[in-house]
């Protein structure tokens, strides 16, 4: 049945450039410049898909992004497959493969079509009503519903394309490059504003650009020729950037907009490699000009959804822009003058128009006269009551309308056709305006919502502002621009405009039928198969709010967001409910205006760039020595160093033993380091830590615990007094940024009188920690000039020294309970110092260890890890660390909270040691702790840290237990999935309570 419906040449189609593509497996041809829709129509194909619920055959309905029906899957079964692509937007390219969605086995024979006949039992809310009871059956229903639900298929392979984000800052953003957008962009840019003009189409000029009628002239030129010249001029303006194929998806507050620039979707697949496919523009514009145009409304009557039924403006566009006839026997059905423009265009191209059905009775305009002069039969005061033709419309039935438009009268007439164009007038595209927070008002005379209150520095011009005629647009736009951009003059002051459009319109939201509504299918939302009947049913069932009706009937909830039918839904609701249109408002338009791919949203934040990582100065050594890494915050930390096929447990056991038996070495560079200077530095530390700092001698180190104002432990670390007014504070790896932020907050807002300066030096230093009985022998060889005697360099003290000519600081501090040293040296020398330690330590079997061994060693010693053994509910008292809370200090952050009624309770969760009855049994971290197994079971706490200690040769654990402080020696139970583990509450310090090893 393939016919060639290409008519007179259009300058937008390059007929010398033939392109082959596949649709549902068959090869067709089109030309460069075609969309998939125009190419299919040229091949006389209307049936492209099946509707969502009833699986009714559906065809191409529009010629733009508002398309509800013609959505296809591209390149099925390939990594570049994409569902829900609008055939009206995708430009064809060599090798394009598209297929119909939502049908099986094929679009011509779809088993789901049975739903159409079952439709009387599939009313609005069918799923809600049917599958709620019995609740336990949901799992059974779900399988079938999921199977038949959804549009298209998501890809199963990784996306081969590249996406990018780009921030754009401009003075003026013009959205839409129709005639008003072009005028605005030119005016703005020529006045010196840095201007960006975007349009979703591949060409500029909107619908005026293919307007070839003598009825619309500007300065005595046909409007499209006039606009053509304007477009040529704007291309030369320097501070104007023009982006086509760029669709604005979202308009947020403060004139922040997101737009998707489509860069490769029109190219053959083999030309897309290593090119950016979509670019998400994050636009911040001082001013925004909305020139988003308007969308033609369909008309709502029985069976208004058959393939071959299109918007009248779409038929005109296919003829004028693409040179394609949508049918050979065309009928137009309208309530306003726009359909006559289509008729005239079709006439010019020699495309047959059988009849015009106009629901207005008394009408008169130049356009209508011309149609009559061309001997086209016009049925005035008539309406379409039904159509026929299953996979393509073949006939329309019409009847006369009563005076009030509520009924049909007389006898039914039938007209044969293969294409029906419908025009219900125009709806301003105010989606972006309302997204930005703009408020609409309802204009009664032509029943449209137009922008009223602007929330930011923006304006709407042209048909999105309700100006639908050429003379309106051209007289209003320059005035609006002058005021908005604060200009004295524009280039468009004295245009001579000729426009023949008569604004009269007979708006009937739901056209009457000779049948009762229950027997009809007047579709309001095509994609979701919501009919006027469903909306009326929802109202009968008591729904009143437009938002509720929307959700119940799914009107406006498809991928097209109901761009065509939303107004009719509102109209039918207010008519049925007897309210005044405009009073109940509209539904909320939400971003995106048209769907975005996930790739666009994600941009380059994938793979390597999914998350930010930080590396220590010694990182490369760990890599070379086969360390496994662990993510700690953004840091990559060496976790353990498996040797000769060791698993993690074996490696950790070996590392832990070596560190206590001889020497271990740890990269501690990730610890947060804050340089504190100022005459009030000691006082500041007194206020932020729980313990006292004033008496700490220069050259000494002290462990400190930091609380939140609510008394809960926030961070910990060792701080060293480098000078009278100079300290260096270490924080936990994960807490570094927040601790600095919190300290700055107090300094700037609560204690601005303190003379203290904080500077982060975390990245400036590499920290090499050497521990174990042989640590002194190793470090003293690396730094031979330094006196390492205990008298000169005791535990918890520090030395300024040099390695060669490189200054560094050495602290004798320990997180393992072993005698140990931390060398802090400028980062770029860190790897070298580490390697020196390894070299010198060889004879002592110096063993590099990672974070896992570090955790094990400190657990043996009962040192806490903030964030592992604590959460935001543990006070120092709960941790049994009363010794660190100064009784003498008048105040410090969190002090007052330590004796709130809640924090002094005896039965708070407290940190304890846990020993398993079976010393080989290692507990699971996070496991619950109970006293006895009964119902209901009472949870006492949970295990926070647990290891097998190779040094103590038994399992050890830390946990928090309600009232645990007073449970020493008591037996508790850890219930696991298939066993109970008995544990004894113990002192959390398992090793060397007397600190002999530290001072050895």
């Amino acid at each position: 049945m393939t016919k060639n419906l290409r008519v007179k040449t259009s300058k937008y189609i390059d007929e010398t450039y033939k392109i082959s593509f596949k649709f549902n497996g068959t090869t067709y041809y089109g030309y460069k410049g075609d969309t998939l829709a125009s190419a299919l129509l040229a091949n006389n194909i209307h049936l492209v898909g099946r509707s969502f619920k009833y699986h009714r055959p559906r065809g191409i309905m529009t010629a733009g992004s508002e398309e509800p029906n013609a959505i296809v899957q591209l390149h099925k079964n390939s990594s570049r497959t994409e569902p829900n692509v609008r055939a009206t937007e995708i430009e064809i390219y060599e090798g394009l493969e598209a297929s119909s969605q939502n049908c099986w086995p094929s679009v011509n024979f779809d088993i789901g079509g049975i739903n159409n006949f079952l439709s009387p039992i599939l009313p609005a809310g069918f799923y809600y009503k049917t599958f709620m009871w019995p609740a336990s059956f949901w799992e059974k229903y779900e399988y079938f519903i999921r199977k038949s639900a959804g549009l298209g298929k998501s890809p199963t392979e990784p996306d081969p394309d590249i996406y990018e984000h780009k921030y754009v800052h401009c003075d003026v953003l013009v959205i839409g490059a129709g005639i008003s957008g072009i005028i605005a962009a030119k005016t703005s840019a020529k006045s010196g504003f840095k201007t960006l003009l975007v349009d979703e189409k591949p060409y500029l000029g909107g619908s005026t650009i293919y307007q070839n009628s003598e009825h619309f002239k500007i300065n005595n030129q046909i409007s499209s020729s006039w606009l053509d010249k304007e477009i040529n001029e704007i291309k030369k303006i320097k501070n104007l950037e023009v982006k086509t194929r760029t669709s604005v998806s979202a308009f947020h507050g403060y004139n922040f907009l997101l737009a998707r620039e489509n860069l490769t979707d029109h190219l053959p697949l083999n030309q897309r490699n290593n090119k950016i496919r979509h670019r998400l523009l994050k636009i911040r514009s001082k001013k925004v000009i909305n020139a988003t145009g308007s969308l033609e409304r369909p008309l709502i009557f029985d069976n208004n959804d058959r393939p071959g039924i299109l918007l009248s403006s779409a038929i005109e566009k296919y003829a004028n822009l693409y040179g394609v006839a949508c049918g050979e026997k065309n009928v137009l059905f309208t309530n306003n003058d726009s359909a006559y423009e289509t008729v005239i265009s079709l006439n010019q191209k020699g495309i047959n128009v059988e009849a015009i059905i106009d629901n207005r009775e008394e009408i008169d305009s130049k356009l209508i006269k011309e149609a009559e002069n061309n001997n086209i039969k016009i049925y005035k005061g008539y309406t379409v009551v039904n159509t026929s033709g299953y996979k393509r419309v073949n006939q329309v039935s019409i009847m006369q309308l009563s005076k009030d438009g509520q009924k049909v009268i007389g006898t039914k007439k039938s007209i044969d056709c293969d294409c029906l164009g419908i025009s219900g007038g125009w709806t301003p595209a105010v989606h972006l305006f309302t997204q930005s927070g703009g408020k609409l008002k309802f204009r009664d005379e032509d029943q449209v919502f137009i922008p009223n209150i602007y929330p930011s520095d923006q304006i709407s011009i042209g048909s999105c502002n309700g100006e639908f005629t050429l003379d309106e647009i051209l007289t209003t736009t320059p005035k609006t621009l002058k005021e908005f951009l604060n200009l004295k003059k524009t280039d468009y002051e004295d245009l001579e405009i000729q426009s023949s459009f008569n604004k009269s319109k007979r708006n009937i939201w739901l056209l009457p039928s000779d049948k009762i509504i229950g027997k009809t299918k007047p579709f309001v939302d095509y994609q979701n198969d919501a009919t006027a009947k469903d909306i009326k049913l929802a109202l009968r069932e008591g729904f009143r709010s437009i938002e509720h009706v929307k959700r119940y009937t799914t009107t406006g909830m498809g991928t097209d967001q109901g761009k065509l039918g939303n107004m009719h839904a509102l109209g039918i609701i207010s008519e049925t409910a007897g309210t005044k249109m405009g009073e109940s408002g509209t539904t909320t338009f939400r971003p995106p205006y048209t769907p975005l791919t996930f790739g666009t949203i994600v941009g380059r934040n994938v793979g390597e760039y999914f998350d930010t990582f930080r590396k220590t100065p010694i990182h490369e050594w760990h890599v070379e020595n086969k360390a496994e890494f662990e993510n700690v915050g953004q840091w990559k930390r060496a976790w353990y160093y498996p040797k000769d096929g060791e698993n993690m447990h074996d490696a950790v056991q070996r590392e832990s033993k070596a560190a206590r038996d001889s020497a271990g070495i740890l990269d501690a560079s990730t610890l947060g380091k804050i340089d504190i200077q100022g005459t009030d530095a000691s006082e500041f530390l007194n206020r932020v830590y729980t313990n006292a700092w004033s008496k700490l001698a220069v050259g000494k180190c002290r462990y400190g615990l930091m609380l939140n104002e609510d008394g809960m432990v926030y961070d910990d670390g060792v701080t060293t007094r480098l000078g009278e007014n100079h300290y260096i504070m270490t924080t936990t790896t994960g807490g570094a940024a927040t601790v600095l932020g919190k300290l700055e907050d107090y300094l700037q807002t609560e204690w601005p009188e303190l003379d203290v300066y904080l500077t982060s030096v975390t990245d400036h230093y590499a920290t090499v920690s050497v521990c174990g009985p042989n640590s002194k022998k190793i470090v003293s060889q690396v730094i031979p000039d330094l006196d390492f005697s205990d008298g000169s360099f005791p535990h918890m003290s520090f030395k300024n020294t040099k390695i060669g000519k490189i200054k560094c600081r050495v602290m004798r501090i320990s997180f393992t309970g072993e005698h140990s040293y931390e060398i802090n040296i400028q980062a770029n020398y860190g790897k070298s110092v580490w390697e020196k330690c390894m070299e010198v330590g060889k004879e002592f079997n110096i063993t590099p260890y990672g974070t896992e061994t570090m955790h094990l060693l400190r657990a043996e010693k009962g040192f806490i890890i903030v964030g592992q053994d604590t959460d935001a509910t543990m006070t120092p008292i709960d941790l049994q660390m009363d010794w660190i809370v100064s009784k003498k200090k008048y105040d410090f952050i969190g002090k007052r909270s330590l004796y709130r009624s809640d924090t002094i309770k005896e039965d708070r969760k407290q940190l304890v040691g846990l020993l398993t009855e079976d010393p080989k049994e290692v507990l699971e971290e996070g496991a619950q702790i109970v006293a006895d197994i009964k119902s209901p079971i009472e949870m006492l706490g949970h295990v926070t840290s647990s290891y097998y200690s190779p040094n103590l040769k038994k399992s050890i654990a830390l946990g928090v237990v309600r009232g645990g402080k007073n449970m020493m020696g008591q037996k508790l139970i850890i219930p696991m999935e298939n066993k109970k583990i008995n544990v004894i509450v113990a002192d959390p310090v398992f090793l060397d309570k007397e600190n002999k090893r530290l001072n050895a």
Partner: protein
Amino acid sequence: MLDYTNVITKEKSYSGLQMKEIKPVMKLIIRGKKREFLSAIGKSLNLLLPTEPNTSSRSEKLSALWLSPDEWIIYSNEISNPDTNNYETENLLNKKISNIGLGAVTDVSDQFVLINMKGDKIFDLFETGSPFNFNIFRDKKGAVTQTILARIDVIIHNQNQNEVNLFVRRSFSQHLFSWMNDSASRL
């Protein structure tokens, strides 16, 4: 003798963009609020600290960037000797500022990696990952901004037409440089 190991070892070149690490460069954060602080710095270094936000000043040896009303970063215009990290400027400022309680002086030479960028595509690259508005900045020699690039904090110092110095914390620098190269490869 210790080896010097910096992060970014390769110089990268694209059409309209060259990027390399400059090292070793002495960098100091200096902080202070008092009037005597500003004058002591001025006298010691023969360099007036910029007090206007988002600007910098420069002497023969040093550049000073405004970071906040009481915070500046000073860096040496010439590279230093990697065999020592004893800096005259730091010693002098310790003597004239921090030791006498006028303010704070902190060595951050390796806290930040300095990436020098040249070419007319610099700002195209920045726009792929920074929310900062470079429209005025790009033509303003000496302009300074602290902002985000690829979700990482950076300090950008406009050196000249089509030349900037970018400072990023050392631990992030490899990630950022890789990201910048990925972006640059498609500019």
